[in-house]
């Protein structure tokens, strides 16, 4: 009798709401963050402009010099005017954007690789390995970043010169085609070598959190190797914070490249970057302020958008965000 009443009652229970997965929840939260969504649009627009537009012929050649019209204001054929050598500024900004964004992305990837590896190993192993790795991170974190990178860049340049020469000698690539690429490598390495520190801490915390949970013990008891567990189970679940910090690392890397370029040890000719354009513009601020303003706008927009997006991702993925 009681059983029947129970069944009856359960049938009339109000339906529970359809559950959302964690990712769906996060996506909904992110969608409602207007700043983050606007930033996405801006980023897509900027990336499209820098990587796709220059393919078309209406964008001038950034290297074409025309001294007769140097420092001129925007016209129909030169939407951002021309720089101190008469080069089309719009084109220079777009091409410069390619380099800046590429440097940002590749360096962040380098950073991520190192940071995730170190953080995951530290968090998963615990004990002495963890203590050692984290002490190393602490020590490195205290070092004056720029000072070391300046030194590092100078050294790396020497090494990549050697690499370029070796490549030229041993393959049939010309010096001019390789040199710009290999010239960027010192940047990737130098900046990437020290910007992984924050990521490693975050990953470690994440991994520690997950490792403590029981499904990892279950996997161990099934005989899965440590590496497999790390790769297949732990890291995918730590993706959230990794994505957030990757998004927030890109702008700091780009800023770094700009500073190095300002000091003359960043991107080298014939390549140009937003950093170079901006520092050149700052030098010539009095004679032609547009040279500073035009490249600064996409640069600042990109950085701010990445920051908004990163913050938005962080709020979206953290269930106990202190926003409301």
């Amino acid at each position, binding site marked *: 009798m009681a059983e029947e*009443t129970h069944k009856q*009652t*359960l049938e*009339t*229970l*109000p339906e*529970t709401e359809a559950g959302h997965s964690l990712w769906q929840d996060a996506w909904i939260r992110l969608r409602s963050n207007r700043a983050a969504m606007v930033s996405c649009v801006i980023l897509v627009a900027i990336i499209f402009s820098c990587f796709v537009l220059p393919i078309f012929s209406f964008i001038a050649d950034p290297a074409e010099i025309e001294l007769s019209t140097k420092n001129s204001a925007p016209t129909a054929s030169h939407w951002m005017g021309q720089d101190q050598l008469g080069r089309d500024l719009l084109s220079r900004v777009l091409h410069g954007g390619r380099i800046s964004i590429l440097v940002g992305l590749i360096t962040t990837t380098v950073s991520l690789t190192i940071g995730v590896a170190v953080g995951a190993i530290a968090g998963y192993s615990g004990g002495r390995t963890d203590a050692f790795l984290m002490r190393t991170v602490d020590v490195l974190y205290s070092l004056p970043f720029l000072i070391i990178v300046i030194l590092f860049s100078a050294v790396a340049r020497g090494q990549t010169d050697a690499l370029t020469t070796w490549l030229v000698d041993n393959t049939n690539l010309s010096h001019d085609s390789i040199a710009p690429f290999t010239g960027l490598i010192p940047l990737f390495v130098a900046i990437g070598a020290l910007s992984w520190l924050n990521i490693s801490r975050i990953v470690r915390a994440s991994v520690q959190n997950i490792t403590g949970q029981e499904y990892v013990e279950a996997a161990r008891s099934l005989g899965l190797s440590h590496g497999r567990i790390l790769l297949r189970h732990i890291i995918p679940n730590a993706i959230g914070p990794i994505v957030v910090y990757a998004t927030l690392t890109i702008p700091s890397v780009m800023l770094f490249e700009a500073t190095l370029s300002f000091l003359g040890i960043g991107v080298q000719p014939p390549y140009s970057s937003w950093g170079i354009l901006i520092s050149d513009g700052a030098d010539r601020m009095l004679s032609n302020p547009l040279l500073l303003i035009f490249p600064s706008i996409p640069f600042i927009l990109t950085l701010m958008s990445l920051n908004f997006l990163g913050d938005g991702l962080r709020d979206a993925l953290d269930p106990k965000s202190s926003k*409301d």
Partner: protein
Amino acid sequence: MPPLLDIKNLKVHFHTRNGVVKAVDDVSIKVEQGEIAGIVGESGSGKSVTAYSLLGLIPMPPGRIEGGSAIFQGTDLLKLNERELNQYRGRKISMIFQDPMTSLNPYLKVSSQLVEPLAIHENITGKKALHRAIEALESVGIDDAATRIHSYPHEFSGGMRQRVMIAMALITKPDLLIADEPTTALDVTVQKQVLDVIRTLQKDTGTSVIFITHDLAVVHEMCDTVNLLYAGRDVESASASQLIQNPLHAYTRGLYRSNPSNHAKGSDLHTIPGLPPNLAKLGPGCAFRPRNTIGDPSLCLTDQTPELIEHSPRHFVQNCPGCLAKS
């Protein structure tokens, strides 16, 4: 003699992204002078929100007091502004909370936290205040109070931290103490000690107490009267002895029946099936109907919300026929 605190038709709603959560939806409770009044209910029943709203501790952007009154010594607490409320908080009405570890400031010594109410309300500082604080610690049974008072909260055990909270709450000799699940986060053995402390102090000082809990056994040990809440509404209220002798509502009866000690060894345990309702989607009608296995769910109200009626002297219950029916 009028009751010390008379809560009438309290309504507190939270306006969230997912809709309006009716955390407290028409609750009325009376607390007499010198008595321990229990507020009992499951998580989400509205018991804590009721208490917090008395002192204006509900975060007011999402939360809003939609109606009702809470008359305390002649004043409606719900109508007071922040400055006026501060005259009552920690002075006439004190509160202790569920988790003593997080409820005490980890960065400040216990001494500075204990003397704070004295500095705010009685303008007593320095040695005099410290002296009172040490006395307060001794009154809750902490040995070596003069030395220990200069420690930090994390240097105390859980039960002792809760006693520190009690001392801090009673140091200004308030008229009403609100205890929000003070023993839920503690071990059973420690629970008893803390309850003893509360009971002894209450007898000594004559302070009235609102005791919030989900544990029926604790209720019967501590409380003179019991108010049972469900889904933000009060379901039944009576003196503790009357409630256990004559539970009227299906929910009350279900709770008592679910108590393992009421079952013979080896027999099936009684449970109340299902889950509490979603407070954002509460419609009219009896909120307990879907889970009513003891009464007669077919008689439960569906369009009208049940109201509280006085079934026998000082024994109130929701007038839902389905829940009052015997099975």
